[in-house]
């Protein structure tokens, strides 16, 4: 019998073959890979396998339990649907980045030790940034750099935490953590990917700048692996639960103010991830079930929303709600899919969001967290309002200037299948309940008070929306978020480096050059020491000495003057590592 392999391996090795294939064969191949990965996950047996000893520690590439399986299933399913959605593109780089991104996310999910988790975590960050950079404009380039800088910071915190944990515990196995310096560092590392406030700014900054197809992948993997690792290492942490509530409310508030359709969706990722984080933070069986069920459902409807807005962008070239309107006539399939996704994310009865959102809110009640329950209800109201806004201004508002066609068939098919999944799980949630980490006991989504409560909430919020519509009309503006402080801090740091520090360096260099000049002169002719004061005064007058060595203390910093090829940096890093290894092995 063939032994199941780590699903990450299928995607990562699968990416290597993409450049070798062409035409229809390539299209078939990239659809077959996720299908094979899905079959592989079905064959994974619970427990740990693919264990390798490295420097005295066990690296576990396949830790299989109910939690990793449910997340693994949905990652592969959405991987298939997202690849179907981008089947029309001809750019190999995007496929390779997407495959590496999906593969490394699966690597994190099935990692049984912190070292391999960290390696996959970093591959995920590097692969995903290319899905932003492949948009190939200045905005995406800059947003990509900000994205990777934030993730490098998170990665450094995570690595530091892992090292401290390993040294203090003597084990690298992924396990529940107890408060210690390692605990906080790992929490920051995980929290950054999960978009904890205020280290969430990379998300609404970078996701709207990704490629049309790349943003579909981006909306799924980074934040959801964050929730998964929180469920594994930080369940039942009250701080995490309340952070979830804050994220839920914060995300919708900012989403309501956005004009860029994909930025609105990006803020909703923060809000929806807030529900998951809250569920995980409560730590009860129902809370974790609710959080993970919401991961599963959210992946479907959030990817669907990014697919719909991507289709609109692809067909019309517009991304701002103030420039859209009336597209329901031209893009009926996209419009229906978007409405299904909007109803799902809002938690309307009969759609998948209703099932999992209800479970998270019910678990807040069960865990006796009244404030958290109210925060999550408030976020529900905001979610409904912002999707009324999105659908109305995109598809139904009057706009006689716009004309379009429906998206390509593969995009429509992907949207149709994803929309079907949202409705299917909404009507038949047992299929989801059966694969959740804990057995679902005592939770029934379709009770009269739950169904009618949600209808009442939406109807009255809708009335309030009609009365106060003018407040949420999209308008052209930037709403400052916490990234204002990071950007200003970054500019300040750049100024410190390029003005005072650069001046100090130049002045030191000038002084050193003067000293060398004088010593060289003395060496040639020691008797000339007597002439130095005269020469110095003369040169000061003619300002000749100020340019000794070709440097002037008044020069402004020119970054290109000191720029070296990246290989020099890599070489220095290798030399440093080699020296470190040498010292380590000798002593």
């Amino acid at each position, binding site marked *: 019998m063939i032994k199941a392999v780590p699903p990450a391996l299928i995607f990562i090795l699968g990416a290597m073959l993409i450049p070798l294939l062409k035409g229809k064969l390539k299209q078939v191949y990239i659809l077959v890979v996720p299908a094979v990965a899905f079959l592989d996950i079905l064959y994974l047996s619970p427990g740990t396998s693919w264990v390798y000893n490295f420097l005295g520690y066990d690296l576990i590439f396949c830790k299989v339990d109910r939690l990793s399986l449910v997340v693994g299933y949905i990652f592969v399913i959405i991987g298939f649907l997202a690849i179907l959605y981008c089947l029309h593109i001809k750019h190999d780089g995007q496929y390779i980045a997407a495959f590496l991104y999906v593969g490394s996310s699966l690597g994190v999910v099935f990692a049984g030790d912190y070292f391999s988790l960290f390696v996959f975590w970093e591959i995920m960050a590097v692969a995903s940034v290319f899905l932003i950079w492949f948009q190939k404009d200045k905005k995406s380039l800059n947003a990509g750099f900000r994205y990777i800088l934030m993730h490098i910071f998170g990665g450094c915190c995570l690595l530091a935490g892992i090292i401290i944990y390993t040294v203090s515990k003597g084990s690298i196995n992924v396990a529940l953590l107890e408060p210690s310096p390692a605990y906080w560092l790992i929490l920051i590392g995980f929290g950054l990917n999960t978009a904890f406030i205020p280290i969430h700014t990379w998300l609404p900054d970078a996701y709207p700048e990704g490629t049309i197809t790349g943003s579909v992948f981006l909306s799924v993997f980074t934040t959801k692996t964050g929730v998964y690792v929180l469920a594994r290492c930080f369940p039942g942490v009250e701080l995490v639960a309340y952070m979830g509530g804050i994220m839920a409310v914060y995300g919708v508030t900012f989403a309501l103010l956005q004009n860029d359709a994909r930025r609105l969706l990006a803020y909703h990722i923060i809000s929806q991830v807030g529900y998951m984080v809250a569920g995980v933070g409560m730590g009860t069986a129902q809370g974790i079930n609710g959080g993970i069920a919401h991961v599963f459902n959210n992946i479907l409807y959030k990817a669907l929303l990014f697919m719909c807005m991507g289709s609109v962008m692809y067909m019309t070239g517009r991304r701002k709600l103030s420039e859209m309107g009336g597209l329901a006539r031209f893009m009926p399939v996209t419009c229906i899919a978007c409405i299904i996704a909007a109803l799902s994310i809002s938690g309307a009865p009969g759609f998948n969001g209703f099932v999992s959102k209800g479970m998270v809110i019910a678990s807040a009640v069960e865990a006796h967290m009244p404030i958290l329950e109210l925060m999550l209800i408030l976020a529900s*109201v905001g979610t409904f309002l912002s999707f009324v806004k999105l659908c109305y201004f995109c598809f139904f508002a009057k706009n006689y200037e716009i004309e379009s066609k429906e998206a390509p068939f593969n995009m429509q098919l992907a949207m149709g299948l994803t929309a079907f999944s949202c409705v299917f799980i909404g009507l038949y949630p047992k299929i989801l309940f059966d694969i959740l980490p804990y057995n679902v006991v005592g939770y029934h989504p379709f009770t009269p008070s739950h169904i009618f409560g949600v209808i009442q*909430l939406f109807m*009255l919020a809708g*009335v309030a929306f009609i009365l106060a519509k003018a407040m949420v009309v999209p308008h052209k503006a*930037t709403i400052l978020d916490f990234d204002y402080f990071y950007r200003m801090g970054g500019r300040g740091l750049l100024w410190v480096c390029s003005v005072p520090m650069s001046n100090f360096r130049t002045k030191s260099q000038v002084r050193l050059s003067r000293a060398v000049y004088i010593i060289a002169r003395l060496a040639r002719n020691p008797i000339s020491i007597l002439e130095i004061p005269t020469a110095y005064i003369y040169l000061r007058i003619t300002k000749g000495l100020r340019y000794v060595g070709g440097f002037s203390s008044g020069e402004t910093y020119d970054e290109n003057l000191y720029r070296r090829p990246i290989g020099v940096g890599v070489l220095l890093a290798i030399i440093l590592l080699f020296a470190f290894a040498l010292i380590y092995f000798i002593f």
Partner: protein
Amino acid sequence: MEKMLKRLFIILAVLCIPVGFFIEHEHAIFFWHKIPSIEAIFGILGTFLLILAIGILTSFAQKKEDFYD
């Protein structure tokens, strides 16, 4: 037509409120679970709270579109 739909929606929403008096919360734990049609109140209050938050936020955090450029 649009006005008609709006009116119909508002009438339906208002009719929802009395129906809530006949439906009880299955697991009433906090005091608000026992208030009939509490979700309707949450809907209205929540919307106004969010609109208030938006108003406050835009008063100091709203800048021109090319602010960072």
